[in-house]
């Protein structure tokens, strides 16, 4: 299983994502740039230049025409994917943390940090006929978050709900028609670093600093499964074709320099979705994995690490031949 290593960032990777078809892979970095790559051969297609701070989150809509980034420079940018140009720049009062398109791609949401005297807010905007006016247009909805700040966010149940993962480990679901919180659970004890939906959107997997990842029902927020490790989990993804979950993480970035790669546990770890048993590890990064994602066809996956590299791993036949029972 020889990986393709994508070298195009000067600082650590913060987020990676495939588009719906899986032919493109997007990566964002602390070097304030976002890149788009051909997932087939790892060739770089282009770079989104414009941010002045670390990009924390990115998303692409289902038609692969629009691209959204949330950055530490206190802006959220909407890009034209084909030309790599900025459509609109939305100024926030504090660094942007998360962003995402809805199922239909008609709406988008972003959240900002609760720093600089600002409270954390989730903002819903209309991006149907987006142009530069979007920068000044009123949003559809603002949901102030009074509790712990939002560290990850998902659109769920088509365009109806937003699920937020918080710094204190809480997971909440909001109804966008009323703007009210429907439910919230606190199964994790520390920051939720990442949340990713299953292919059909009925479940999602969380990755938490409390060294575990959990599988939740995306309507009732019932915790279905728990995947335990020894180190903080930064990202988790569900295979679209098999009952597999992949987890990536490692210790906090600030501790990395004092640990050897051998001890660092910078491997991606594969768990069985239902049995919660670990069955494989893939080595490679020499820093913690910050973000990972399965290819939509389930035949490969990509990881982005603190070391600044994105690694594209295509599974061998033995991965598909492996039967649990």
């Amino acid at each position, binding site marked *: 299983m020889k990986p393709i290593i994508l070298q195009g960032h000067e600082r650590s990777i913060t987020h990676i994502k495939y588009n719906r078809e899986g032919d493109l892979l997007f990566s964002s970095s602390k070097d304030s740039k976002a890149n788009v790559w051909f997932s087939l051969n790892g060739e770089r297609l282009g770079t989104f230049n414009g941010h002045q701070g670390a990009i924390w989150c990115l998303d692409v809509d289902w038609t692969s025409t629009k691209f959204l980034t949330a950055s530490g420079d206190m802006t959220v940018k909407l890009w034209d994917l084909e030309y790599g140009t900025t459509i609109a720049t939305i100024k926030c009062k504090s660094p942007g943390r998360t962003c995402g398109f809805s*199922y239909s*791609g*008609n709406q988008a949401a972003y959240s900002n940090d609760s720093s600089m005297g600002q409270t954390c807010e989730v903002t819903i905007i209309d991006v149907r006929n987006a142009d530069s006016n979007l920068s000044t247009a009123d949003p559809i909805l603002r949901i102030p978050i009074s509790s712990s700040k939002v560290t990850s966010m998902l659109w769920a149940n088509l365009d109806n709900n937003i699920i937020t993962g918080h710094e204190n480990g809480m997971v909440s679901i909001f109804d966008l028609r009323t703007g009210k919180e429907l439910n919230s659970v606190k199964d994790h004890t520390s920051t939720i670093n990442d949340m990713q939906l299953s292919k*059909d959107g009925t479940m999602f997997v969380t990755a938490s600093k409390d060294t575990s990842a959990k599988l939740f029902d995306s309507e009732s927020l019932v915790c279905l499964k728990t995947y335990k490790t020894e180190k903080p989990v930064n990202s988790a993804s569900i295979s679209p074709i098999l009952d597999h979950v992949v987890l990536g993480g490692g210790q906090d970035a600030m501790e990395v320099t004092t640990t050897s790669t*051998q*001890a660092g546990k910078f491997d991606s770890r594969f768990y069985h979705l*239902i*049995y919660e048993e670990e069955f494989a590890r893939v080595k490679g990064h020499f820093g913690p994995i910050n973000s990972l994602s399965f290819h*939509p066809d389930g035949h490969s996956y990509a990881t982005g690490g603190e070391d600044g590299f994105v690694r594209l791993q295509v599974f061998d036949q033995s991965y598909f031949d492996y039967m649990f029972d």
Partner: protein
Amino acid sequence: MARKKNEQFSDDDQDYGDEPNFDDPEGFVDDVSDEELLGDFLSNKPCETDGVENVVVVDNIPKVGQARQEKLRSVIDKLFSTFGQINKEFYPVDEEGNTKGYAFLEYKNSENAEEAVKSLNNHRLDKSHTFAVNLFTDFQKYEHIPEKWEPPTPQPYKVQTDLYNFLIEPDGYDQFCVAAETAPNAIQVQFWQNTLPEPMELETRDRFTETFVKWSPQGTYIVTFHKQGVVLWAGTTFARVNRFQQAATHFVDFSPCENYLVTYGPTPDGQKIIIWDIRTGLEKRTFISKGNMSRFRWSHDDRYVAYMGENAIFIHETPTFYLLDLKSIKIPGIRNFSWSPTDNIIAYWVAEVTDVPAKVTLMEIPRRTEIRNKILFNVAECKIHWQQSGDYLCVKVDRFSKSRKDKKDSDVKFLGMFYNLEIFHMREKDIPVDSVEIKELILAFAWEPVGTKFAIIHGEPNIANVTFYEVKKGQKPNLVKKLEKKVCGHLFWSPRGQFIVLANLTMGTFEFVDTENDFVVMNSGDHFRASEVEWDPTGRYCVTGVSAWKVKEDNGYYIWSFQGKVTKRVMLKNFEQFLWRPRPKTLLSEQQQKEIKKNLKKYYAQFESKDRLRTTRASKELLEKRAHLRELFMEYRVKRIEDYNNQKTRRLELRNHVDTDNLNTEDVEEEIVEFLIKEETTIIE
């Protein structure tokens, strides 16, 4: 003035009128006793017999004349005042002023007196005087023994736990314990049985010990450490069998046959060392070390215990714990000694002094005959390594070609170091000695526990060579294999021989070598920062551990097979110790053991089928568990998949009636787009 005052008072008194009469009326009989009025007060009234229980009678003290009484008193005082202040002493004398051979000493309280009796009764002052110390009250007690004998009431029978239960486990599984700190000074200890296919937990004890635990050499007892002393535990349930009180004991040693326990604890006067009888719990002998005593070392059969003092070895005999022949063995310049693991022979070495060479001597105990001497020159340091079966002894000699005395530190600096291994053939006549010279620094030496090989690591720490030698009867040690350029610093032989682990404990890398099959490296692996290596008593498993004593992160242990495959990884917070429970020596004769080895093929099939059965049973359980989980999960999924299917129209609506549920990569039409990249004009001539 005074008078005037008196007058004034008398004047005042008159104001109160006449003083009433307090006299008893005539014929009054007092019916209230003092007891009733002042009972509590009177109970403190001193009486003659007070303090009798504080008095001890010391018999068998030397009879001396007046001239030497002062000396005698000071000797007795010194001995007895360690238990408390002596208030009064009395030495009866005869008409000529000689002491009568006994004395009375009164302590401040009865506890001191009892302590003195406990410790100094049967104390040997010198050859002909052994104290008989008794409480004074005992004399009274025994004077008043009733004439009529009453049968003693029968004591309820106390069931003794079976100490050797762990040995009758039908499958011969080994046990191990794992210690981890759960709170400051509270160590949790888990007991496990190394069953197949997964180890089974026997018991977990929270706050079992305050510092660490230690097994006795044959695995019968486990010892825990507490503020007041140490406790021994044994039996199936690890019940408490005995307590040994010595405050702040920080270390213990067992005698090889588990008859005695030696506890070491600091006191203001120096290290206090107590030897206890394990079964009775009685103190046998106490020593105070002022820093000049070595650890106590036992002979293999528990008959002798020895320690090294300045220029002498002190050997005490069991069970009396008297000095052997009542005198130490004077050896000027002795540096170290060691007992043979199978015979009552001591090996020691004496350092080199100007003009007198260094010497390694073997001495037979108790006859004190020197059975072998080996003179060595230019010696900086010696290390004594006995082979486990006592057949061979290796003395590693660090030698120098030049030495220089540093005037400033009065330290001697050695230059041009080289190393000799002196091999003593113990079982041959006159104990011949062979010598192997190694030019490089020897980092480690280890005898094969069962067998005749030894291994050394020599060279630089980062590019060391591992060399194996074989020793045969009547032959010089023979180099059998040299493994070059290994990064290792420690050697760990399997307790059954043949297999050895070459360990690098700074990085945590391990190589498993089979020394019977061309010294092939069977496997190598790493356990980052592992600092401990523990072979199980059967030599089938090896454990590496990252102890919280060394590093605070990634604590836990790996269990490896002897072939170097990791069979189990356990991460445990603040893990400190992993200890296999030792086993006593086999009771089978060598003949019987050979018989078993010969028929190994026959047993092999039996065990193999048993193991297979066990693993299938386990995997069956696992499969059932998984099937159950799958069933539960599917139950939930069915409902959700239905929900998902019901959403189909809504999904289509939201995405402009494009069905994106599947990737449909097969249906995609390949489109060839041609566009101009570059225009070039070439003029054809």
